[in-house]
C-alpha cells in the first residue's frame, strides 16, 4: 500500500478547488499564510500549482502584495486575526470591478469569519472556500496533519474544534485504506475524536474498501505521556528536531534555523543515508557517517581504475547516486556539527539529571541544580522541562521548593512568565504536591483543571511507570548495554525511560486478546476500546498509531523499533510533530491567548 494515496487525495481536492475557482488557463495570484506554506508545498508542490494557473506567490504580510493578475487567492488558517489582516488589505485596496478575491480557509470557514466578511460588505467580490488536507506523509512511517496549534487549543484551552479535522482525516484514511477492525483510545480527546467519527459514519454512511490493510487504530492523547516530551531525545532525528526545529520534514542548517539554501529534507525514502541514521542513537551517528564517507570514497576510487566501458556505465548510473549521497552526507555531517556545538556545554549534565529524575534519586541535588541553573540564566525552555519532569515524576514539588522556584523563575526570566507557570500548572505539568491545598491551584474553575489533566482520580506518574515497567529494571545499571545499541526502546532516551506508547502498542498488537488490565488500573476511564470486530484476522495487519496533540520523533523511532521486532508495519499519524523546546516555547510565548 502506498501512503502517497493520502497525499494524492489532498492534492486532488486542492487542485480541483483551484480549477473550480478559475480554469487552469486563467492566471491567478496566490498569497499564503506562513503556517500553511510548508504543508501546501508538501501536498502539491509549486510546479503543480503553476499548472493550475498560479502565477505569482506571496507570503501573507501586513500589506497587500504587488498584484499582477485579476484573480487573487488567499490561503489562510481559520484564525480570526488573520482574516482581519486580509480584510484590511482588501479594504485598502481600491477594488476594481474585474478583480475577484478568493479566500481559502483551512480547515474550515468558520461562521465568525464568514459573518465578519459579510459585515464588511465585500462578499460580492470575495468568495470564501474551505479546504482541509488529509494526513500528509512526512516519511515512510510518519503522517502529520501539521496542526501545530492543536495542542494548545485542545489541551490548554479546551477548545476542541480542531479535533474535527483529526476525525475527518481519520475518516478519509479509512475511506481510502479500509476500516479499522480494532480501535483503542487512551485519553479524553481520543475518545472525542472517535465519537465524532462514529457520528459521521452514521450520518454519511460512507463506503469503505473491502480490503483493509490497517487493522488497528491506537489513539493516544499527548497529555497521557508528557515525560517523552520532557526528556531529551537522543535519536538523530530527535536531536535535530530539538536543536534545529524540523519544519514539516525540513531542516535548515543556516544560522539559527533561518530558511535558506542549506536545506535538508528528512525523508527516508528519498535519502538513503538518512534512513540509516534517523533512528540511531546520536552517539553512533557520527561514526556511521564517517564510515559511510569512507565507503563512498572507496567506491569512487575503485571505479576510477576500470575500463572505459565500465567507466561509462559508472558515470551514467552510479555516479549520480554517489554524488547525491555525498551531498546529503555533507549536509548530515554539518548538521551533526551544529548540534554538537549547541549541546556541548550542558548535554552531559542534563542527561545525568534526567536519569536522576527518572530514578527518583538525588532529589536534593536536583533541586539545587535547578536553582543554580536559574541563577545561571540557562535557556528557559530547558529549565522548565527539568522542572516539569521533576514535578511529574515526584507528583508535584514540595511547598517550599515550589514557591521558591516560582519566585526564582519569575525574578530571573521576567514576571510575565507567571502566565506560563499558570499554563503549565493547568496542564498538570508544574504543581505543588498535595495540590488541593495550594495557592495557585484554583487558577481556573475546578472543572477546567479536572478536564484538562487527570487530576480527578490522580495516579502519580511514577506509579504508572512502575506498573507498566517503563523505567529501567535494574536501577544500578547506569550504562544500560542496550541503551545505545538500539535493541531496547528506552535507547531513544538514553536508557532512562521506555516511551509509554511503545508499551501500549506492543500490548495491544502482540497478544491476541490484549490484556490491558494494567492500563485500566492506571488510566481508568481514559482508556476505551472501540469496536474490536475481528481480532483473529488482524494478526498481520498494519497498525496506525494516532497521537492527538503531537508526537516526538523519539517515540516514532521507538515504534519503528517495535515494528521491526514484530515484523508488522506501524505507521504513526499525528496532529503535528512536537519537541520539548518547541513545546515549552509555545507555552511561554506571549501570544498564548490569541
Amino acid at each position, binding site marked *: 500500500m502506498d501512503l502517497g494515496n493520502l497525499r494524492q487525495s489532498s492534492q486532488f481536492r486542492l487542485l480541483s478547488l483551484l480549477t473550480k475557482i478559475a480554469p487552469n488557463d486563467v492566471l491567478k495570484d496566490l498569497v499564503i499564510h506562513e503556517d500553511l506554506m510548508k504543508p501546501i508545498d508538501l501536498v502539491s508542490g509549486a510546479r503543480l500549482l503553476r499548472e493550475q494557473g498560479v502565477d505569482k506567490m506571496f507570503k501573507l504580510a501586513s500589506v497587500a502584495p504587488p498584484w499582477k493578475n485579476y484573480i487573487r487567492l488567499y490561503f489562510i488558517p481559520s484564525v*480570526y*486575526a488573520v482574516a482581519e489582516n486580509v480584510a484590511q488589505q482588501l479594504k485598502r485596496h481600491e477594488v476594481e470591478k474585474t478583480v475577484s478575491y478568493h479566500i481559502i480557509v483551512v480547515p*474550515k470557514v*468558520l*461562521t*465568525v469569519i464568514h459573518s*465578519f466578511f459579510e459585515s464588511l460588505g465585500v462578499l460580492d467580490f470575495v468568495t470564501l472556500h474551505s479546504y482541509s488536507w488529509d494526513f500528509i506523509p512526512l516519511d515512510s512511517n510518519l503522517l502529520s496533519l501539521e496542526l501545530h496549534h492543536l495542542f494548545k487549543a485542545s489541551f490548554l*484551552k*479546551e*477548545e*476542541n*474544534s480542531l*479535533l*474535527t479535522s483529526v*476525525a475527518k482525516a481519520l475518516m478519509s484514511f479509512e475511506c481510502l485504506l479500509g476500516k479499522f477492525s480494532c480501535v483503542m483510545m487512551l485519553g479524553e480527546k481520543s475518545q*472525542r475524536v472517535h*465519537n*465524532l467519527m462514529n*457520528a459521521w459514519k*452514521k*450520518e454519511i*454512511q460512507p463506503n469503505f474498501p473491502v480490503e483493509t490493510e490497517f487493522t488497528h487504530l491506537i489513539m493516544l492523547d499527548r497529555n497521557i505521556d508528557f515525560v517523552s516530551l520532557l526528556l531529551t531525545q537522543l535519536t538523530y532525528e530527535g536531536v535535530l528536531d530539538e536543536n534545529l526545529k524540523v519544519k514539516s520534514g525540513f531542516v535548515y542548517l543556516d544560522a539559527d534555523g533561518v530558511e535558506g539554501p542549506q536545506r535538508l529534507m528528512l525523508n527516508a525514502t528519498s535519502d538513503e543515508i538518512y534512513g540509516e541514521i534517523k533512528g540511531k542513537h546520536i552517539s553512533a551517528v557520527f561514526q556511521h557517517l564517517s564510515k559511510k564517507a569512507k565507503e563512498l570514497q572507496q567506491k569512487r576510487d575503485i571505479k576510477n581504475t576500470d575500463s572505459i566501458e565500465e567507466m561509462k556505465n559508472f558515470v551514467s548510473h552510479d555516479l549520480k547516486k554517489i554524488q547525491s549521497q555525498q551531498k546529503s552526507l555533507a549536509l548530515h555531517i554539518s548538521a551533526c556539527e551544529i548540534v554538537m556545538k549547541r549541546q556541548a556545554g550542558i548535554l552531559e549534565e542534563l542527561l545525568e539529571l534526567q536519569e536522576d529524575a527518572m530514578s527518583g534519586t538525588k532529589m536534593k541535588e536536583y533541586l539545587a541544580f535547578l*536553582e*543554580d541553573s*536559574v*541563577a*545561571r*540564566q540557562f535557556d528557559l525552555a530547558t529549565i522548565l522541562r527539568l522542572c516539569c519532569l521533576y514535578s511529574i515524576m515526584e507528583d508535584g514539588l514540595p511547598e517550599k521548593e515550589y*514557591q521558591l522556584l*516560582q*519566585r*526564582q523563575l*519569575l*525574578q*530571573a*526570566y*521576567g*514576571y*510575565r512568565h*507567571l*502566565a506560563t507557570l*499558570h499554563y503549565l500548572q493547568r496542564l498538570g505539568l508544574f504543581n505543588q504536591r498535595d495540590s488541593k491545598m495550594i*495557592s*495557585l491551584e*484554583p*487558577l*481556573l*474553575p475546578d*472543572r*477546567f483543571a479536572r*478536564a484538562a489533566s487527570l487530576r480527578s482520580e490522580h495516579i502519580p506518574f511514577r506509579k504508572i511507570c512502575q506498573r507498566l515497567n517503563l523505567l529501567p529494571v535494574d536501577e544500578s545499571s547506569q550504562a544500560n548495554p542496550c541503551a545505545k545499541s538500539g535493541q531496547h526502546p528506552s535507547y531513544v532516551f538514553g536508557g532512562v525511560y521506555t516511551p509509554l506508547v511503545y508499551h501500549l502498542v506492543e500490548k495491544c498488537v502482540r497478544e491476541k486478546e490484549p490484556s490491558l488490565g494494567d492500563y485500566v488500573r492506571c488510566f481508568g476511564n481514559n482508556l476505551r476500546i472501540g469496536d474490536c470486530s475481528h481480532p483473529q484476522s488482524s494478526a498481520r495487519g498494519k497498525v496506525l498509531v494516532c497521537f492527538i496533540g503531537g508526537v516526538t520523533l523519539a517515540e516514532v523511532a521507538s515504534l519503528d523499533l517495535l515494528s521491526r521486532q514484530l515484523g508488522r508495519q506501524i505507521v504513526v499519524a499525528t496532529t503535528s510533530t512536537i519537541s520539548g523546546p518547541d513545546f515549552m516555547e509555545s507555552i511561554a510565548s*506571549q501570544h498564548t*491567548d*490569541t
Partner: protein
Amino acid sequence: MSIGVPIKVLHEAEGHIITCETNTGEIYRGKLVEAEDNMNCQMTNITVTYRDGRVAQLENVYIRRVQKLQVLDLPQEEENQPFLEHKLHVEEEELEEEVQEAGHLEINLQDLKVTVAPSGGPIAVVRDDTKLTPVQTSGKPIIFIFSPSGELKSTIKWSGGKIVEINWSSSEELLCIQDDGSVSAYDIFGNYQNSFQMGQEAREMKIIDARTFPSSTGTGLVVLTTNFRFFVVNNIKDPRIRRFPDIPGVNIAPSCWTAIHGDDRQTRVIVAKEKDIYLLDYSEQHVAQKIPEISHHHLSIIAMAVSPCSKLVALLTDAGVIWIGAFDFRRKFCEHDAQCMLPAVQLVWCGSGAVVLNLGSVLLVLSPNRDNFTLILDSTSHVCPEVDGLRIITNSSHEFLQKVPLPNQEIFRIGSMSPGAILVEASREFQKRSHRAEEYIRLVKNQLELAVTQCIQAAGNEWQPTVQKVLLRAAQLGKSFLFDKVDSELFVGICQTLRILNAVRNYKIALPLTFQQYEQLGKTGLLNRLILRRQYTVAIQICQFLQMSEADGIPRVLTEWACYKIKHGLGKLDAEQLASEISAKLGTGSKVSYSSIALKAIECKQEKLAIRLLDFEHRASEQIPLLLKLGQEPQALAKAVESGDPNLIYYVLVVMKETYSADKFYMTIRHYPSVNALYAKLCRTIQMGSLEQIYEQEDNFNAQAILSVKDSYRAQKLENRSAMLTTAVKQYRQAKAEIAASLTEDQLKLLKTQSGYESKFGCPAIDVSLNDTLKLLMRRRDIKETEEMVKKFKVPERRLWWLKVTTFAEIGDWAELEKLSRLKKSPIGYEPFVDVCLQYNNITEAQRYLPKVEEHLSIKYYVKAKLYTEAAQIAFQRRDTEALHYVQSRCSSNRDVVDMINSLIAKLANPSESQNKR
C-alpha cells in the same frame, strides 16, 4: 386461406368495446362478442347513431362485413380506439361501482361544473350556479372529488363565498376561486392546504371569471374582474399579482378569453370582444389587436382554446365555424364549418394535433388538415385536454382519446407491411412454432433494427398488458437476430416503465397515465402523485424497483408518510406513542430526515413530539436550528458540543446570548468546558462579550487576576500597568493565592524601582527581569543600589554570586572578580569563576582560580582550560590512570603531551620498574 393481419386485430378486439361504422353510415358502439374471419361481427349493448343523428339502444347486433373500423382507418387524426379506452382495464365490477356511486349522488354532468386534473389526475365537481337545478342539499355547494376510476375520494362542504371557478393545479391541488379573489387550495382528500388573495382591486370589484394555465414554474392563474381587468399570477406557490393592461374599446364583458404561457415564459391573455381579438401583454404593457382571417361571416367569437404546446389557437365563431391558426393569428391552418346546431359546451385541443368541439354528447373532432369526424357518447360529457390527448368523462365512463402514435399505426394498420408489423407477425408464428416465422423475419431482415424499435415504442404506448407483451415478445425476437447492435437500454427502460405504468393504472391507485405523460411527469413527479394519494407502499416499491437514489427515493417517501402520520395522528395518539411508531417504521440508520418530520410536527403545534423526533436526527446541523426554534437551547447546546462543530456551537451561542439573560446564559454554558472555551475565544477575538464577566460570574478570581496580568502587559503607560497589577493583587487575595499575590506585589515594586532607574540613568530599564536589573546596576558598578535591591527582593546569596561572576566577566572587570573571590569563601564554588574566564578566553585569569576548584573536578577544569600538562601532573600525583587516559584522549593533537602522559601512565603501571630504573 391464411388469416390476414387486420382480421387478427378484429379478433383481438373481442370482448372489448369497439365502434363500427357500416357502409350505410350508421355507427355502432358496443362490446364485440365475436368476430369472424370474413369480417362479420356480433356485438351486444349497442348504442347506434343513425345518419340523421338519432340515437338508439340495441341489445344485440350482427353486422355483416364491417367496412370501416374506426379504430384503424384514421391515419392522421385519431380516435377512440378500443385499446385506448381506459374502461378496458378497469374491472367490470368497479365500473358498476362507479356508476352506482355517481347514481347514488345523482350526479349529472349537465348540471355540474367539472374540473379534471391533468396527467391522469382526479376529478372535482361542484354545482354550476349558472344552471338551474332542483335544490337537493342545503344552499351551500358541496364539492365532490372523484378518483379517475370514479371512486369518491372526498367531499368539501363549502362554507365560503361564491365560488367562481374550481380548478386543479399541476401539483394536484384543487383551487377554489371565490368571487372576492381569494383562492383556497385543497388536496385530493379535501384537506385545506393554504390560500392567497388576488389583490385589493379584485376583492373590491369582485371577479367574474378565472382560468388556470400551466406555466414554466408551476400553475398560473388569471382572474377577470367585474370591471374587466385581468390579474395574473404566474405561479400560485409564489403569488405575485400583475395587473394586465385594459382591454380597449367599450367596457363590455369579453365574449371569451384565454391565457397563454409561451416558451418565452411570458404570460399573455387573448381576449375576444364580439369579433375583435386582443392580445394583452404584461411585460410590454401593450395591447395588440389581432385580426384572424375568417372567411365565414360571424358576429362574435364565442370560444377559444390554446393547444398544449402553446403555439396554436382555435377559435369558434357564433356561426359555428372553427378557425385554427398560430397564436399570433398571422397564420391560418384551417377553417371549418362545423355546422353544429347545438350550442357548444367546450372547445378544447386533443393533443396538439386536433381540436374537439364538445356539443354535450357529441364530440366533433377537427384537425388542421381537415380529417374530421364525429364521436357520439352515451351521455353528456366533459372533456379535458392532456398533452397527448383528451380525457372524456361522461356520467358513467371515463375514456381517453388520442391520436394513435405512429409506431402503433404502423404495426396495427390494416394491411400494414411496415417492418414492425411483420416482426409482430413473425413473433406470433414463432410462438406457434411455425416455420413461417423464418419467412417473416427474412422479409424484414434489412430493417430489423427499425422493426425492433417500432415494436418497443409501440409497446410503450399500449394500455393492455397482453398487447404490450405481444409487442415486447416481438421486439425480443427481433433483438436476438441483431445480437448487440440494438441498445438494450431502450428495451429494458420500456419494460421497467410499463411495469410501473401498469401498476399505477390499476383502478385502486387510479393513475391512468400514458407513456408520454409519464415521460413528462418524470419519476419524481410520479412519486409526488403517489404521495399525494397516500399510496406510500406503492411509492416505496417503485423506489425499490427503480433503485432510486437515497436523496429522492425511499427516505423521502418515508418522511412524507411520517408527516402524514403526524398530521392525522394528532389528538389520537400522544407524542410518545407517535414518536416511537414513526421511529419504529423509519429506523435510525436510514437517511430519513427526521428534522423535516420534526418541522412538520412543529407546524402542527406538536412541540413535544418534535423534540422527541429530533432525538432521532443524527445530523446535528439539521437538528440544532430546529431545537433552537423549539426553545430547547440547552439541548441544542449539548448536541452542538457533541457534534464538535464550532460553527454550530457559535450558532447556538448567538441565539442564546440574545434570548437568555446574562446570568442564565453563563449558568448554561458553564457545564460545557469546550463551549466556555469557545466563548472565551470569541470574547477575545470579536468582543462577543466580556471575559471578565464570566469569571466574575464564576467567582473565579484567579482567572481574573491572570487576565489582569496579561492585560497589564498590553498597557502602554506605566500607570495603567501598575493599576492593573494592583487589581491583580486584589484578585489574587480574593482567590487566596498568597504566593501569586506577593509575587505580583514584588513586580509592582520592581516596576517602580525600574522606572526610577530609567529616569535616573536615562536608559531603558522597565520591563526586564530582576536579574537583568541587577546586572544593569552591576554593569554601572552601582554597588549601593545593588545591595539595596538585593535586600528589597531577598535575592539568595548563591544567585547573587552567580550574577556577579557572570556580569563581571561580561564587562571584563577581572579586578572586581578577583575582589569577589577574596571577599569570602564562594558559596557557589570557584568553578564558575574558571568557566567565565574561559568563556572570555582569559587563561591567565582562569589560572588564578584553578587551584581553588574542588578536588574531584580539578582535572576536568584543567583540561577545560587546555592546561593538559598540569592536568596530567595532578592525575599522576593522585595515581589515577583513568584520569590520565581521559586527559590523553582530550589532547590527542598535542604530540608532546601525549608522549608525556604515556610515560606517566607507564610509570604508574609499573612503579617497580621505574624504581628499578632509578
